[in-house]
């Protein structure tokens, strides 16, 4: 019995919050000048998660690194929701409508969430991106945007 109680006390002594990976899909979409889209975030953790969504335009350098900036005036974006509370093991889908009045638009929808904390008490904040490439024609839009930035995919 002493052994059982010892094991029980040992379990009670681990009070840190378990951190689980969160998932977003799809990561990348290509669309024409006007499109309706959506992305889903799954809370793989055991506690509820507050998620906020922000939109950013971005450009790529020749190495493929992205630089975010406020949304370009050529992008007209209507988000259905700017935030959501996702229940444990639940999935939430965010919908949007995008209209691009430039030859091409690259938009990142950044989902931010606090997923736990370190042993020192520092909060761990995760940002996952859903990337939308919008061109005159949907096909090979991402490839064209990357080629315009001087990135060779071969």
């Amino acid at each position, binding site marked *: 019995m002493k052994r059982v109680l010892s094991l*029980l006390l040992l379990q009670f002594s681990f009070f840190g919050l378990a951190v689980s990976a969160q998932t977003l899909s799809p990561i990348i979409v290509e669309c024409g000048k006007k499109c309706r889209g959506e992305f889903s975030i799954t809370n793989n953790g*055991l506690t509820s998660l507050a998620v906020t969504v922000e939109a950013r335009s971005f450009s790529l350098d020749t190495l493929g690194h992205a630089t975010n900036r406020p949304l370009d005036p050529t992008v007209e974006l209507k988000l259905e929701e700017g935030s959501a509370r996702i229940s444990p093991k639940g999935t939430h889908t965010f919908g949007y409508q995008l209209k691009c009045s430039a030859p091409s638009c690259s938009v990142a929808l950044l989902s931010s969430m606090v997923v736990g904390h370190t042993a020192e008490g520092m909060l761990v904040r995760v940002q996952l991106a859903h990337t939308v490439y919008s061109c005159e024609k949907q096909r090979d839009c991402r490839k064209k945007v990357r080629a315009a930035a001087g990135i060779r995919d071969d």
Partner: protein
Amino acid sequence: MLRVCLCVLLLGVPASAQVLQLSGGRSTLLGGTGGEITAFFPESTLSASAGFANGHFVFGASDTFKLHGLEITAGDRDFGYSFDGAGLGVSTRGLFVQRNTRHTSFAVFLGSTGIGYATPFMVTAKAQHIGAGFFLQRHFDNGLLLSSLAVIDGGKHTAIQGLSYRSHSLHLAGSAGLLQNQKYFTGEADYQPLRSLSFSATHNDFFLTDHLTANSVSAFAALGRITVQASLLDGQYRLLKTTGASAGASLRIGSITVRSNFYESNHRILLVHVVQEHFRRWAVSGIVNQLQGQTSYAFGGGYLGNKISVSLDHSVLFFPVSGKGFQQTTTVQVSLRIHDTALNFQTNIDPMMHVQYTTYASSYVQGPLAGAAMNSYSHRAGGKFVIGGSVVDEHGEPVEGAAIQLQGGAVVYSDSQGKFFARVKHDKPAALVVLVQEFAAPGRWVVTSCPANAAPGVDVLIRLRREIAP
């Protein structure tokens, strides 16, 4: 003294858990009614199940924890693996150890086996025989996958070896051995010379009360918006031999798909024509069935939302066991999420063509050690009017993660710019409440100014002061 300690143990474990998961349900497909309580700790997961299966009381319990990279379960667990068309599931009570790495999956159990129930809402086992099991799967970089499964379940022995190979255009898989004392073989070949063209052939042995063999050959081609497919099937169960053939084509125009399929089995011809339209969250379909000169109509569809998903599906399945060949089947699935509780209902058709159902609910309860859990407020999306604003601290800096409740229960959170918005259906001012206990932002906050109401189209400014830094 022992009883007191056991009471402390039974009451103390759930009370001190970070998170509890409560589940309960009923399934005619799996033949059980019951429930399960699972307590999640940072280093382990304890669960206990109880219920009735086929008129008998059943129970189960397990403790899963990690030790030196191994996942160990003591108690009841389903030992089930499938690969290359072969598979076996055994309910076990004992010690189960598994380890998964990038290339290798390994599992072993030692204890007892017996009739058990592994459902989303209940896991139980009955100790009937001494049992042991071993599973190993190894991925090789050249596309080979080697699998091995060995199980002793009382007097029944299983030893299956599987080998598969996958390249850019070819997938070959086969497994053979002894499945519950019976010789067994299955094979599968898929060849895809082009992205839009594929061929497939399969052979399977199944063991129900008797030996069942099923073979199929199929081809698929896609040309832009048009797809075509054809297949030949045959099955034998006892002395009953069933053959079938099918062919079909589909055309996609925007969000609309038109599909026609021809099925022939047991000298009966079934023609199914489907028109399906996919909206973003909705799908609707109209179905026309033509069977031996008789025409019938059906409608199906579904909705996939954040709170609820519903679907009514019609499909044609091949039933070699009942000897009926191709038959039209209808299945229903409903999922509902209310705060942290998920409710599920679905129907299935078993191999004997009987309709079975499974329904269960599952909920998460935050324990006292899980930290400040969020309350069960709901969100709403939709509406053409926007209520929004920004949240700043005493220095005028934006506050991220502030929770604001609008009249009617919807809660929204501010982003990194301190901005928040919600879409509402009516062009009327809504009451605004700042929920400081719900903040995702660290620290303790006090509201210094907040308008009582917010009107659509007019940005509001909420000022906060941080009392205690994180």
